[in-house]
Structure formats: C-alpha cells, structure tokens
C-alpha cells in the first residue's frame, strides 16, 4: 500500500518500507511516525539522518550492533546502547528507524 506524503504517493512493500529509497523526503518519516503515534524529536532525527549517511556511503543499512557502536562514537558514549535506541524507536532501532529513513530492511533482520 502506498504512503501519502505532502500530496504525493510513494510505493511501499508489504512491511511498509519504501519501495524506492530515492523517493525519501523528511515528510516520509513524519507520516510514518504519526501512524505509529510517535513524535519525532531531534534525537530521532540524529539517528534517521545517520542511517541515511551510512547507507549513502556503504549501500547497506547497518546491523543494530553496528549502529549502536557508531551512535556511541558519534553522539556520545551514553547513547551508544540499545536501551537508548529502543527508547527512541520502540519497534527496534534498525527496523523502525530504517523504515523512517527510507532504507531497505537491514540485512539479516527478520
């Protein structure tokens, strides 16, 4: 089912991930988070933007373990743990944050 963002319609797969990563715009994350009753804060955007940068550079979505370590290094040791990330993204940082970021489901994530 497609997702409606600012009057545009973007295709998604059966799990709600964007079909085409190039369709992404910030509004995609806004609409998806609203459906999950989640309000996006700057802390959420830090992760979403980081995921997009990671994908841009390596062409994959990072595994949770890799993301956790990288967040600790980039945003401070106190944030480099799964408790912090699950606090932001209760459905799982990789699954939920990657979806908001327009990335495909992380490799190895079931």
């Amino acid at each position, binding site marked *: 089912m497609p997702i409606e963002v600012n009057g545009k319609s973007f295709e998604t797969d059966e799990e709600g991930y964007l079909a085409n990563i190039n369709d992404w715009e910030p509004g995609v994350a806004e609409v998806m988070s609203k459906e999950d009753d989640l309000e996006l804060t700057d802390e959420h955007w830090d992760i979403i933007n980081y995921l997009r940068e990671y994908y841009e*550079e*390596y*062409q*994959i979505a*990072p*595994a949770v*373990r*890799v993301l956790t*370590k*990288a967040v600790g*290094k980039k945003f401070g040791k106190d944030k480099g743990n799964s408790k912090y990330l699950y606090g932001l993204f209760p459905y799982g940082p990789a699954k939920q944050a990657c979806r908001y970021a327009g990335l495909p489901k992380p*490799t*190895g994530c079931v």
Partner: protein
Amino acid sequence: MSETIKQFLYLNRKAPYGTIYAWESLEVVLIGAAFDQDVSLAFVDDGVYQLTKGQDTAGIGMKNFSPTYAALGDYEVKKIFVEKESLEERGLSLDDLQHLVWEDEDDDYAEKDSIKLVSRDEMAAIMDGADVVFSF
C-alpha cells in the same frame, strides 16, 4: 551458552556482477558477523576482482555493492586475505584494490589495514587452519 569460537573462512572465487555469488557471499558475511565467530575472508582466482577500486555500475543498471566492502570493518571483519598469484595472473596489484581498514577501539580508533596479501602456499595453510569453509 557455548563459548566455542570457530574459525570461519569465507572463500570468494567469483568475479562480481557476472554472477550473484559475490553479493550473496557479502550478505552472508554481514549476517554471520552477528554470531561472534572468528571470521576471515579469502579472495582467490576471479574473487580478487570483487575488490577493485573505482567500480561504477550506472551503465549496466545493477547495484554497485563495492562500497559495502568498506563496511566490513564495522562488522568486526578484520582479516581479509588476498592471494598474490591470483592478482598477478590478472595483471593486478594491491594498488588496484580498495584500501580496506578496521578501527581499533582499544587504540583510540586507529585505522588498521584489513587486507593482507598472501602467497598461494600461505593461502593453502589458511584454508587448512579453518574450522569451517563457506564457498562462493
């Protein structure tokens, strides 16, 4: 929980893009990296072509997965063995390959080389020493 650490060797012998083996291997390595085993990658025969730098697949309409090799360090894959003879038979040298590194957390995140050039004899010993070999 078992504490047994096994030595896993991923043996890569195919060129990228012509067949799906190279990408499949990379995916399995990334998934397998979650299991805290001792992982090594071996690039032999046409497998060395996977690591050439400057790959640009825009013209053939396929996903360029060569940037993903640079993520291997993040996945704790620090041992990438490239066979010297295989490079030479193909008119290549180490300079033609990507420079892959991993960050050593215990050494102030210093970047260390992941790729090690080995002779055919050394490669044979590496294969011999592995507990499990995954072939692609």
